[in-house]
């Protein structure tokens, strides 16, 4: 469940694709972490590439409560051009004709509406290029 405190905390990732790059081994984590698999604890904040390739995907036809009105929608795992992978919806396309290997770009979009006040939550979605 998205709450205002959590939403505010995640703004650097949702709005700016900020990730943590290990200053020792170079591995990049999205979202940023406090410790790397190599054991190092020093990171620099980097902005991820906003283009990538669809690794796999599905079309959600039975959706969780807050997405019921949007089904069917495509969602996939995208590998960005810097090697980082993330899960995102794939929009502005014919969901019946998507294919693995599709090149996509990451765009800033509305993701969901939460709570009785209808707070709008923004973040990233992917669009075929």
């Amino acid at each position, binding site marked *: 469940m998205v709450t205002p405190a*959590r939403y505010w905390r995640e703004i650097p*990732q949702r709005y700016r694709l900020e990730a943590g790059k290990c200053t020792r081994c170079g591995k990049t984590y999205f979202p940023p972490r406090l410790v790397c698999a190599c054991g190092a604890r020093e990171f620099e904040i980097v902005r991820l590439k906003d283009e990538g390739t669809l*690794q796999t995907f599905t079309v959600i036809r039975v959706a969780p409560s807050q997405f019921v009105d949007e089904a069917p929608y495509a969602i996939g795992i995208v590998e960005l051009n810097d090697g980082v992978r*993330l899960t995102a919806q794939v929009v502005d396309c014919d969901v019946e004709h998507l294919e693995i290997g599709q090149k996509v770009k990451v765009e800033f979009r509305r993701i969901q509406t939460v709570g009785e006040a209808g707070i709008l939550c923004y973040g990233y979605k992917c669009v075929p290029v």
Partner: protein
Amino acid sequence: MRDVAVIGIGMTKWGELWDKALRDIFVETALLAIDDAGVDHIDSMYVGCMTSALFVGQEHLASQLADYLGMGPIPAARVESACASGGLAVKQGFLEVAAGFSDIVLVSGVEKMTDVGGDQATYALSTAADQEYEGFHGVTFPGLYAMMARAHMHTYGTTREQLAHVAVKNHRHGALNPLAQYPFEVTVEGVLSSVMVADPLRILDCSPITDGAAAVILCPLDMAKTLTDKPVVKITGVGHATDTIALHSRDDVTTLNATAKAGEAAYQMAGKKPEDIDLAEVHDCFTIAEICVIEALGFIEKGKGGTAAESGLTALGGKIPVNASGGLKAKGHPVGATGVAQVVEIVKQLRGEADKRQVEGARVGLTQNMGGSGGSTLVHILEVQ
């Protein structure tokens, strides 16, 4: 460390049990296990349950259940590892007995899923994924496994029909299990024409929403022989491993690393190899899951899992029968109960009590129970003495 045996098992018919509360389902199966073992008390208990909070609005579950079982003030703990909560409870019970903290331990798993509607249940289950970086975007569990299925089909040439054959096989087995939620057969054509849930997975690729519980009684092996005259089943291997809970964080979405690691640990502890296993109960929450699991456990070569159900390798009468109980697919999947129910089925089989679905001459059985999209896995190996 003491050797540990299973001396009692209990399970009731699974399904949509609208007239029963979570505590009733738990107590019914716990009493069956206690009576099956022939014991008059238990020293402690573990309960596996994924999310009683989201399904029935109740936490502090273990104390409530110990009370309703009439066993208070024994130590009681509820453990959680998403859909592997039951398997984790088995491991915790094993450790409790092995370490000498308790002699007679009740291990139960329970989930009451039909008190909420379908979209709320979908949401409750989705909390086993990374809520901030998967769930936030609208992914569901069928969706995560659908992405694994599409990748497996793309990389290894697994076909849509091969996925269907897993459901057909497990329903054929489940039709022989009177406790199964859906004890009937389905056809390949029926699976392929059922409603699409998350492409390419259809409703008959998915395990159902289920109310149910299962229970076992554990005790030291030495004590087992004095407590019961039934065949004694020893837990000879225990494996437990984790993986990223976000599917996108794995190098290969078709490889279940936690299952491979837990399998290796259990095989090593038991001194067994995959070819020594007579039958297995594995976590077929979706048809693709059984395919990836049997690859990770070494029952079949990586990439060839799709052929197993179709060829009969994993069917009753095949080389390694998988999910003789009907699996999660036909027996049902009350998430927290599943890992315990797998042990119940293996014990039935090893005792020779599995009736029409009996695997003849079964001596060594394996259970594999996993959470989320594979972020946690418990593997147990059991052998009849």
